[in-house]
């Protein structure tokens, strides 16, 4: 019970950070929206993705990029708490220790959801349409939510171990670039052998394909299970490493 109360109080605190500096959500959503504009209106005409509308094809990958750029702020906030000694202050108080990390993770889920909603709204303006029903949207929310959870725990690791603010946020760049070598922007069939092999066997492709199928109102098939397996594996490994880093950090 105390752990839940402590987590609620601490989550309230870090959510207030976000409402006080909404620029973190704006910048999170801005880059993916810029990518949407760039690919739909500048490059999209030359890309043959086979779908009726390129924005429909593109959106799932852009949502993955949104999550990757959002969680880097979680690493940053955690890093700042550590540097300011606030984490130590919490450690010397009679509160449930895991609640400190969980409050940052829950805050990340809320902030990322808001950024995802903003990007989807922008896509709707640009002509994105979905045939998915309520169940389909719930499944999409489930995939994106669990991906956010997994990547947030991944972000906790640099947040706790980085020695500079750049180090705390820099890990997100590979995550943001990973969708480019996947089926997010163009079908993998157009890629040369080794690149295609990599693209088809990295997590983003299965996640993006599953979300795309769901949004189109189709059955995602095996992609869904491969995507969930990837997300579950990332979550498990990241959670174990993050809690180990936390224990090391607080001695």
């Amino acid at each position: 019970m105390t752990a839940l109360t402590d987590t609620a109080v601490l989550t309230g605190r870090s959510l207030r950070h976000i409402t006080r500096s909404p620029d973190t959500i704006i910048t999170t959503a801005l880059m993916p929206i810029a990518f949407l504009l760039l690919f739909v209106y500048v490059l999209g005409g030359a890309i043959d993705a086979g779908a009726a509308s390129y924005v429909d094809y593109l959106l799932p990958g852009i949502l993955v990029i949104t999550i990757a750029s959002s969680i880097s702020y979680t690493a940053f906030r955690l890093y700042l708490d550590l540097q300011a000694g606030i984490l130590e202050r919490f450690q010397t108080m009679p509160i449930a220790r895991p609640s400190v990390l969980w409050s940052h993770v829950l805050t990340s889920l809320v902030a990322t959801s808001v950024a995802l909603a903003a990007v989807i709204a922008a896509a709707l303006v640009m002509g994105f349409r979905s045939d998915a029903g309520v169940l389909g949207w719930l499944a999409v929310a489930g995939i994106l939510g669990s991906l956010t959870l997994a990547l947030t725990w991944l972000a906790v690791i640099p947040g706790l171990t980085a020695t500079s603010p750049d180090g705390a946020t820099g890990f997100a760049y590979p995550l943001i670039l990973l969708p480019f070598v996947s089926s997010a922007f163009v079908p993998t069939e157009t890629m040369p052998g080794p690149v295609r092999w990599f693209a088809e066997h990295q997590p983003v492709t299965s996640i993006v394909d599953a979300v795309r199928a769901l949004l189109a109102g189709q059955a995602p098939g095996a992609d869904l299970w491969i995507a969930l397996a990837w997300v579950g594996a990332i979550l498990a490994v990241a959670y174990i490493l993050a809690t180990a880093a936390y224990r090391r950090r607080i001695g």
Partner: protein
Amino acid sequence: MTAAVAVRGIEKSYGDLHVLTGVDLEVARGSIVALLGSNGAGKTTLVRILSTLLKADAGEASVAGHDVASAPAEVRMSISLTGQFAAVDEILTGRENLVLVARLRRVPDPGGVADAQLARFGLAEAGARRVGTYSGGMRRRLDIAMSLVGDPPVVFLDEPTTGLDPQARREVWAAVRALADGGTTVLLTTQTLDEAEHLADRIAILHEGRIIVDGTLAELRALIPAPTVEHVEKQPTLEEVFLAVVGAKGTP
């Protein structure tokens, strides 16, 4: 009656660096003890062990009757730590910082407690402002105010006046004195001899990993041969001049 803080044979090393090599220390309830030592003497290490942030390699330590190694949760119920750098949330207001700590400490009426602390530390007017706009002295006072929410019986202050101007330092001293008058046990670390002399009931000198002297100021003075009497015109210190010129109130 057991001491509020009892340390016996505490050792701590970082690799080949032996920071603490057998510290013994007792702090009586309701007293102020200053832990004096030069930079790197291990003062902070000892405080971190006592506040459950760090585990000792050897030795025993208890705070408010609870062993720091076997009952850290009970220790945390009885203490608060004010570290070397004010651990305050810059984005929240001063009042929100206090309410946050009050909630986490399960204090009834967090808002009322926050207002009382703001008034007590001369921050009532600044309470609604973000801490990011505070001066160093205000931050430090807020930091100490946060530590005292819920009236923990034992308070550790790690170099509480480092980086403060003389006025702010005197304000902190007055706050610490008031704490001890109210029955709180205070263990503070300092490198300023002046501070130890002004505040502490007892002074312990930490040097090369051990407490080499521990006693009242009078006892410490007695360690040195009796002074010879000389006539010297007493010049005001620069600090006294500064405080007189800027119109600060007398010494605490």
